[in-house]
Structure formats: C-alpha cells, structure tokens
C-alpha cells in the first residue's frame, strides 16, 4: 500500500458511499446532492490517478452543469421536499434490482480484477501522458471525432428544443380538446 493507494481508497470510499446514498435516499433533492458529492469525489479519484485535465473537466461539466441541470429538472417537476416513498419501485422490484446490481458488480469485478492484478503505475514523477500529450492526441489522432462531438452537442441542443416545442403543441391541442369536451 503506497500513499496514493491510501488516498485513493479514502476518496473512492466517499465516492461509493455517496453514490449508494444517492440511489437509496428517500429525499428527492438529497439524491441529486449526493450525486454531486459522488461526482466531485470521483474528480478527486481522477486527480489521484494523475489525470488532472479529466478531473477538472469532470468538475466543470458534471458537477457544474449536469447536476445543476438535474436540480433544475427536479425543481421544474415540483419535486416533493421531505421523505417520499413513492419515488421508489415496490419492494420486490428493489430486491430484484439489488440482485442485478450485485450481479453486475460481481461480473465486472471478476473480469477486471484479474486483468489489473499486480499492475502498478509510477505517477510520482508526473503522469506518463500528461496534459500536453492529451492536447496533441485530441488535435492530432482524435481530431475528427472531436469535431463530430461539437456537431453532436449542437444537434442535442436543437433536439432538446424541438422535443420540448413539438410535444408542447400537441399537449395544447389535447388541453383544448378536453376543454371543448367540458364545454
């Protein structure tokens, strides 16, 4: 056990515990806040693994944007404050879900742990890749996927706008149809 191992175990324990709380808590808003803690400490995991750029992007995009979007969606859908049992599926379904989750964990661990057993990386003298290597790879080898991703973001923006707009119109029509029926 090196120092990095101990630090990673501590940060990883925070990540796993807050992720577990975010999927089990009965408070709707607490779930999003525990997700924030989990994603933030996962950025710490990336830092310990020597990938500063990925950790910072994780903080900016996930913690700064995605969790805020989730919180906005919870507010716009009038999330109840306080413990609420109706956000969970029935007990038998949760038991099945826990079994399937445990099976996923066991399957992945059985596959990955032998793959990484005894593999160590020397990070104390600077990461082997480092940010300059990532920049050169992004704008060299990966430049076309990178450009396609910007198109994907644009399409997602337009798609979200179109989805909310088009279905809103049909919703207005159903409301007027119901109003006519009422009249």
């Amino acid at each position, binding site marked *: 056990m090196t120092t990095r191992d101990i630090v990673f175990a501590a940060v*990883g324990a925070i990540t796993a515990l807050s*992720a577990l709380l975010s999927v089990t808590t009965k408070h709707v808003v607490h779930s999003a806040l525990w997700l924030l803690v989990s994603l933030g400490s996962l950025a710490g995991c990336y830092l310990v693994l020597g*990938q500063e750029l990925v950790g910072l992007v994780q903080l900016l995009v996930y913690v700064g944007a995605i969790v805020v979007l989730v919180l906005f969606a919870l507010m716009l859908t009038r999330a109840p404050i306080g413990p609420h049992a109706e*956000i969970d599926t029935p007990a038998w379904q949760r038991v099945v879900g826990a079994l399937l*989750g445990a099976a996923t*964990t066991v399957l992945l661990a059985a596959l990955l742990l032998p793959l990484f057993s005894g593999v160590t990386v020397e990070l104390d003298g600077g990461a082997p890749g480092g940010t300059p290597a990532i920049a050169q790879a992004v704008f060299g080898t*990966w430049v076309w996927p990178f450009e396609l991703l910007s198109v994907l973001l644009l399409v997602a923006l337009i798609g979200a706008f179109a989805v909310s707009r088009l279905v809103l119109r049909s*919703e207005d029509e159903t409301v007027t149809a119901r109003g006519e029926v009422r009249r």
Partner: protein
Amino acid sequence: MIHLQLPAALAALLAGIGVYGVLARRNAVLVLIGVELILNAANLLLVTAGSRTGAPFAAGPVLTLFVITIAAAEICVALAVVLVLFRTTGAIDLTAVPDLTDEPEPEPDPQPDPEPEPDLRGEVRS
C-alpha cells in the same frame, strides 16, 4: 506508484450501484441519476486503463472527455423529454406513464403530427 486494482474495483462497484439506481427508482430524474453513475463507472475504467504505461494515442483520457461530452448531450435531451412528460401528464412517475399516455393517443395522436406545421405557418403569417 498506485495499484490499479482499486480503481477497477471502484468502477465495478459504481456500475452495480448505477444498475440498482435505474431499476429501483420510479421518478424519471432519479433514473437518470442511475444512468449518470453507470457512465461514470465507464469513465473511471477508461481513465484506469489509460493510465497504464504504453497506452497509445492517450486514448484513456481523451475517450473519457468524449464520454463526458456525450453524457452532457444525453442529459440535455433526456431532461427535455422528462419536462415534456411532466407537462403532458403532470407527473414523472415512470410506472404511471403508459396509463396516462394511452388516454390522449386514440384521437389527438394522428392529428398533432401533421398539424403543428400548419400551426407554425399560420402563426408566422398572422
């Protein structure tokens, strides 16, 4: 120096927790939180595998950045769908969705697909 078994174990754990979160929640936004956890497990695994010595093209961190971008696009569209679901049905309970969407389907659903375009043109003209 760091042993890579710990990050791999954490990735497996996060994926399992995410699967439980997707299956055990009825609230649509909370299901999306489970999906985010699964995506983060994939990201952690990419970073872990990419930090091995001799990984070509800096593939681990670069692909992690790509997955983060795709996750942002995904959650953007998914939350738009969730908000539309809330406006049409008044709830985002996923178990109640089929019952509620079947009601407006028989009459209005053939109509709204061709109709919004004439509505748009009419609004623009007026």
